[in-house]
């Protein structure tokens, strides 16, 4: 029921997450933010089991910030992703594994934009586009068809708007060399067909 998506462009990463916090059948919140800011140019998107998400994401967030305080410079997205994966892996075979699925999106001065996909078994993959949740089944195939590495931000945002499912609303953010930007919140859209003329 929860949904995350990330798309990497030539010099930015676009990420979106749904806004629902649910407890069994009741939607307790409609404006819940699932993105955690690790640093000026890194976002961690986290879904999964109720308490684990916030607990794990805040743990990673505070440790990344501690690194900056101690060393004076920030972790790169690749380093942050690997650190997160290592922690997931360490807890996996303990008494308290964290059941969380993550997307880490960041912009590095040297390497450019990066999107990292991680799941609760602590798999890590750097990917041009990625999604979590039931919505992933539907959107990954569309992304396969229509994604081009050199796409501009505008066409990718349009792409994003097209195939988001019937969840009430989404928070969308874009990371580029200038940091993290909030895009407009997407309202509920129905599932229209995607034709080449719309790109």
């Amino acid at each position: 029921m929860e949904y995350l998506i990330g798309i990497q462009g030539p010099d930015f990463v676009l990420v979106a997450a749904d806004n629902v916090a649910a407890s069994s059948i009741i939607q307790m919140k409609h404006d819940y933010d699932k993105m955690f800011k690790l640093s000026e140019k890194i976002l961690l998107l986290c879904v999964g089991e109720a308490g684990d998400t916030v607990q794990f994401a805040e743990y990673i967030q505070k440790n990344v910030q501690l690194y900056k305080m101690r060393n004076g410079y920030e972790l790169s997205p690749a380093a942050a992703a690997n650190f997160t994966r290592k922690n997931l892996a360490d807890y996996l075979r303990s008494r308290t594994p964290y059941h969380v699925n993550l997307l880490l999106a960041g912009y590095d001065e040297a390497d450019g934009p990066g999107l990292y996909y991680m799941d609760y078994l602590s798999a890590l993959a750097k990917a041009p586009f990625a999604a979590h949740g039931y919505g992933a089944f539907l959107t990954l195939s569309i992304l396969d068809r229509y994604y081009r590495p050199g796409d501009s931000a505008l066409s990718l945002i349009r792409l994003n708007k097209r195939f988001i499912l019937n969840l009430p609303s989404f928070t969308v953010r874009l990371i580029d060399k200038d940091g993290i930007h909030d895009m407009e919140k997407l309202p509920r859209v129905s599932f229209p067909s995607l034709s080449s003329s719309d790109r």
Partner: protein
Amino acid sequence: MALQDVCGFLETLDDISPCTYLPNEMGYMRRTPFEFDRDSAFHFLPPPQQCSRKNRAPTLFSSTFSSLSPHQQPFQLSHGTTTLGFIFQDGVIAAADTRASCKGLICCPISQKIMPIHSHLVVNTSGSGADCMLWERILTREMRLYQLRHRKRLSVNGAAKLLSMMLHPFKGTNVCVAATLCGWDGEETQETLQSCMEIADVKKAVEQDSNVSAISDESAQGSVKMASINEQDEISKDTQALNPTSTFGGRSGPRVCYVCSDGLQLKGEIISVGSGSPYAYAVLDDGWRWGMTVDEAVALAREAVFRATHWDAYSGNNVDLFHITAHGWRRRDREDLKEEYYREREREKKKIKEREKERQKREGDELVEGEGDIYSVHCG
């Protein structure tokens, strides 16, 4: 990891055994304040898993599944209760029913589910009764300690975070606590010694007023009055009609926060928990406005609990209601909802009679005027 090393987190947990962690007078005095803060959440028997962490053979799926799915129900509305809390321009309303049930038996029809923590915070509890009692006391102790050490009260969100962190080690066990913290953050205008008081004559007023009920739509503001002794005017002067979004970033204002033993922690404007919560949500979503008056808010809360107790088998008996403002919490007398149910039935009967009369009158008029066909069928 870095933060763990700084706090010595793992060292503390790994070499404990149950007996060394029982509270010990001398032990407290020897510790530094920093250690005391760090360990205070663990001053009770830790869950068995953590004690035997070293001795257990690592298994992947058994531990994963045991912590993921303690219940195998299709959905988990297993807390047999209705509690709710919401904020509005004049504070926070916390309301709950009073039925404690165990499967099909009502264990206690007059339990108290809303418990004050301090002068500006109450907690609505649901879940397992014993767990709630214990955790409410632990939270009260920690908040009092915080207040003594730092000379100011912990905010509602801080209390929620504290409770969430304390409950986290017990995730995956059968601890079942779903608490809604309702309170007022920030500086209060006067000291709150007089703010925790019972409103004794509201109940009398409601009983005498049999025609008008607090719950009917037409007279929502009529009979439910918090018997404001000396504070109603001051309250209306002090609290501004704030935009709801501005209070979250601001330093003072009403807050409501939900904490669950599986770790879910939510801040919001309307929170309802328990098996009766869907019914309560429906009523609350319909009637809630930021700019409600106190009477409207109290009436809304009562109606929500009443409807939930009507439809839900595990909620019922009485309704407790607390109102928290900058001056502290005030408690409304417990009210038996059975009376309200009978009053509603009377009202419905009256309405039906009136409708009958009107219909007959209309028929009578139509016959006199000769417009109606006496063989035509009238509905109703």
